[in-house]
């Protein structure tokens, strides 16, 4: 049995409407472009694609069935490689030359077919590694097979729903950079009615219209984060039909068609609708409201909105938001003459979003390094002094004599730098004993046999046997649990309310998180006030001390834009190549500028909140933020307890 790519179109797929999108896709393929079809679940990506490629050869692959690069390019038949003696012992005559089992990607390149990758956001990172050279060079070097050249007509069409964050990983920028993106939204009203009628033939056209209207309304309802796709309308009609065919309910009530249709709406839609975070009503109540709205709407002359789709265009994707100002922070840190990765006297080694971020950079008396910052965003001298005085007293209050620094009313640049370094060392010393935490749960992966799991991974074991005919126990591959790698972003409030002593707390949090997640998880650190700054970018290898120093070099000041900070954190999370993502914000929860934070918090799959004080008002705000972000809220009692509370949140 060879790997059998699914060839050709399937019968019964007919696209309804979508003439413009079909045309655009055909044009892009004619022009030799690779295409990413991006749209919500159930928008009809697969159907459209099959229709547009009617006259082309297709090689379709479902990304979830591809676990490694070998699943795309193919592999030498391991059994053919088994050496003579093992083969004779097992009664198989040894083959002269090992047979190469061609994978779907190589098959598509050789035949000039369109390679269809369904659910590209679910493809393993390893497999993307072979897609990219095939896309840009049209050429692929396959060990054991040689160079494979793409024949004319070869193109890759990938489908993905980039909004769907659960169960999907990030698509690498290198892949996005080589594709044209065709955005596919839900079908228009008339198209949707046609599709439903085709899938559930014989349905009363009035019910079809109602079911389409209700799913379309669900996508606009303020209490819903995610509405239903057309599959909801199809299921609604099918279930309503089945309810009618069942006998009326036993008991005194007898089912009427209207009641049954409402029941069908609840059954078909309630799994598909995601209530928004701040919604307390059960989803059934929202469905009832939507359904009532549809029934009411029938009495009004509803002008059909028609083709509500945003004009779909083919545009090459630009690079995802990369640090604009100073490049990857690692570079700057490496070139830092101070040697500690950060000197408050130098330009901030992190990117910043607004000119206000200059407040985060080091500064000298008289604001020598503040050139270019807008005046209204500059903190007054007094504010800076207040934090520096707090740092000095923090260092002075620590148990080590000799590090106490006396700063005058107007410290020099150098004095400030030494103050920050001293304070950083104290913070790090006090972190002693911070617990290392691991992501909750584990994932299954192929590992060498270690006397634990006996769940044999046959494919890899056979490959191992080829290389080593007299296997040891460690040449057996099994599927076993390995720790899960997480992406974590720590979001620190450094607005005006954090000036003085609280900044030390923020720095402690950054240090404790770095220690706690060292070696196991990816950590990013963001600070926000009315602007934002990335103190540690995802993947940046930074020690504890510089991270703490970067926080202490900040001078808290100004208004609080929690939503802005959360948005920045969410962006960083999305750049992390993990499927498990978690955010932690340290704040007093009081936002006085920017968007409402609760709506942004709801975007996170998990946002925990560390409240900076325990007053009832703060706790109330922070709890609301945490519950919107599907996380928990903790407060801490003094600096000594902070690392413990933080690791509790990080360990879930």
């Amino acid at each position, binding site marked *: *049995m060879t*790997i*059998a790519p*699914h060839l050709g179109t399937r019968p019964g797929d007919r696209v309804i409407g979508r003439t413009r999108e079909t045309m655009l896709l055909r044009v892009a393929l004619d022009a030799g472009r690779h295409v990413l079809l991006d749209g*919500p*679940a*159930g928008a009809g990506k697969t159907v459209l694609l099959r229709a547009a490629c009617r006259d082309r050869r297709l090689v379709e692959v*479902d990304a*979830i*069935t591809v*676990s490694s690069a070998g*699943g795309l390019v193919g592999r030498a038949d391991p*059994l053919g490689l088994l050496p003579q003696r093992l083969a004779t012992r*097992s*009664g*198989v005559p040894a083959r002269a030359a090992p047979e190469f089992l061609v994978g779907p990607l190589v098959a598509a390149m050789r035949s000039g077919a369109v390679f269809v990758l369904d*659910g590209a956001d679910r493809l393993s990172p390893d497999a993307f590694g072979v897609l990219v050279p095939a896309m840009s060079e049209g050429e692929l070097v396959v060990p054991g097979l040689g160079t494979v050249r793409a024949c004319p007509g070869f193109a890759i069409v990938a489908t993905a*729903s980039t909004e*769907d964050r*659960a*169960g999907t990983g990030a698509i690498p920028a290198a892949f996005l950079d080589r594709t044209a993106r065709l955005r596919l939204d839900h079908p228009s009203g008339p198209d949707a009615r046609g599709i439903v009628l085709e899938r559930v033939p014989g349905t009363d056209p009035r019910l079809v219209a109602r079911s389409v209207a209700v799913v379309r309304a669900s996508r606009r309802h303020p209490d819903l984060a995610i509405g*239903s*796709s057309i*599959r*909801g309308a199809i*299921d609604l009609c*099918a*279930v309503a*039909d*089945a*309810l009618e*065919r*069942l*006998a009326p*309910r*036993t*008991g005194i009530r007898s089912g009427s068609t209207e009641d049954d249709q409402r*029941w*069908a709406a609840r*059954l*078909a839609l*309630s*799994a*598909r609708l*995601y209530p928004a975070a701040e919604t307390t009503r059960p989803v*059934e109540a929202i469905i009832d409201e939507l359904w009532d709205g549809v029934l009411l709407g029938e009495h009004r002359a509803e002008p059909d909105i028609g083709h509500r789709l945003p004009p779909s265009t083919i545009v090459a994707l630009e690079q995802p938001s990369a640090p604009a100002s100073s490049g990857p922070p690692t570079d700057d840190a490496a070139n830092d003459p101070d040697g500690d990765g950060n000197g408050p006297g130098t330009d901030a080694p992190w990117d910043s979003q607004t000119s206000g971020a200059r407040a985060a950079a080091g500064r000298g008396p008289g604001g020598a390094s503040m050139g270019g910052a807008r005046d209204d965003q500059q903190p007054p001298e007094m504010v800076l002094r207040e934090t520096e005085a707090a740092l000095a007293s923090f260092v002075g209050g620590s148990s080590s004599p000799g590090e106490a620094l006396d700063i005058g009313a107007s410290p020099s640049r150098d004095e400030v730098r030494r103050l920050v370094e001293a304070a950083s060392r104290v913070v790090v010393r006090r972190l002693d004993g911070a617990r290392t935490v691991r992501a*909750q*749960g*584990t994932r*299954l992966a192929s590992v060498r046999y270690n006397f634990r799991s006996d*769940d*044999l991974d*046959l*494919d890899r074991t*056979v490959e191992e*046997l080829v290389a080593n005919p007299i296997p040891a126990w460690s040449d057996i591959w099994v*599927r076993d*649990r390995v720790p899960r790698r997480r992406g974590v972003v720590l979001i620190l409030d450094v607005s005006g309310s954090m000036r003085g002593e609280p900044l030390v707390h923020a720095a402690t949090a950054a240090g404790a998180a770095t220690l706690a997640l060292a070696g196991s998880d990816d950590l990013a650190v963001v600070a926000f006030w009315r602007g934002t700054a990335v103190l540690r970018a995802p993947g940046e290898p930074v020690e504890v001390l510089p991270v703490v120093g970067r926080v202490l070099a900040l001078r808290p000041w100004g208004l609080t834009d929690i939503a802005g900070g959360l948005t920045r954190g969410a962006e960083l999370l999305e750049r992390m190549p993990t*499927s498990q993502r978690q955010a932690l914000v340290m704040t007093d929860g009081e936002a006085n500028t920017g968007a409402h934070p609760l709506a942004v918090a709801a975007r996170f*799959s998990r946002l925990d909140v560390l409240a900076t004080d325990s007053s009832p008002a703060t706790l109330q705000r922070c709890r609301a933020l945490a519950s919107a972000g599907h996380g928990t809220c903790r407060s801490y009692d003094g600096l000594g307890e902070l690392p413990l509370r933080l690791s509790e949140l990080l360990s879930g």
Partner: protein
Amino acid sequence: MGRFDTRTGDALTDPLRDDPASVYARVAAEVVGRDDQLRAMLAVLVAGRNLLLEGPPGTGKSTALRAIARHGGASLTMVEGNAEMSPQKMLGHHDPAAVLQHGYRPEDFVPGPLPTAMNAGGLLYVEEFNRLPEDTLNTLLTAMSEGELHVPRFGLVAARPGFRVVAAMNPFDNIGTTRVSVSVYDRLCRLAVGYQSEEEETEIVLRRTGADPELIRTAVRVVRRTRGHPALRSGCSVRGAIDLVLLVASLRELDGGVEHDDDLGVAAGLALSSKIVVDDAHGGTAEDAIADILTEVTGAQADVVPRS
């Protein structure tokens, strides 16, 4: 095992679709109460859709589904969702010894629960659905929407008519669960299943234990009070009442039929404390909460910890 037939040529009928009304009548006669829910479950299955049953444990989800499968003539393949349920276990594997002998041959494929249910045209019942790892959930996608499944090194498995996925989960279960993705939800019809009514629960406990009706009524009231109690984050199902009644009976038996005042309290501590979850914010232990509830229901001061 070893032989696995994926031909779809033979015209198998879908028994559930043939005569839904009589299946409904027979199931309703067997299950206590639950008229509307049974009708809804059947409607989704008759319509050939995939079903998600959402509700706390012990609300009769499995009981109802088993009755539907039996009376509807559909096969039922059960899968318990947990973190160990890898995609390979869901799909199936090749017999290792045979692979070393002959290479990968279709006849050496040992199908997992998903291809088995597809091939039988039956129901695949996945309990604790939200405990399945993400990649295992993903294997269900094409099977649910297109009735097709690609198994690496085996080929394409096509579902016979009658194949449906029924998923069950407890939405309030936060420990060890994964967030189910939109793509999966987009292929499911959902039915929220709540607790039975007081009369129905009394009837269920009576059928299971046959004990003193007065004791059963007290047990059911205690158990119902655990749900929505301010000190508790989640209460227990009718299983708690069954255990409570059985424990009281056996405590009395141990003492030769002599009744003690604290029998109910001790039995409640044993039967219920593992089934309820205390709200951290409220403080207090599970035993405190149970003692409060007993006092409230019986009117007498209750001791949950046995007197020494």
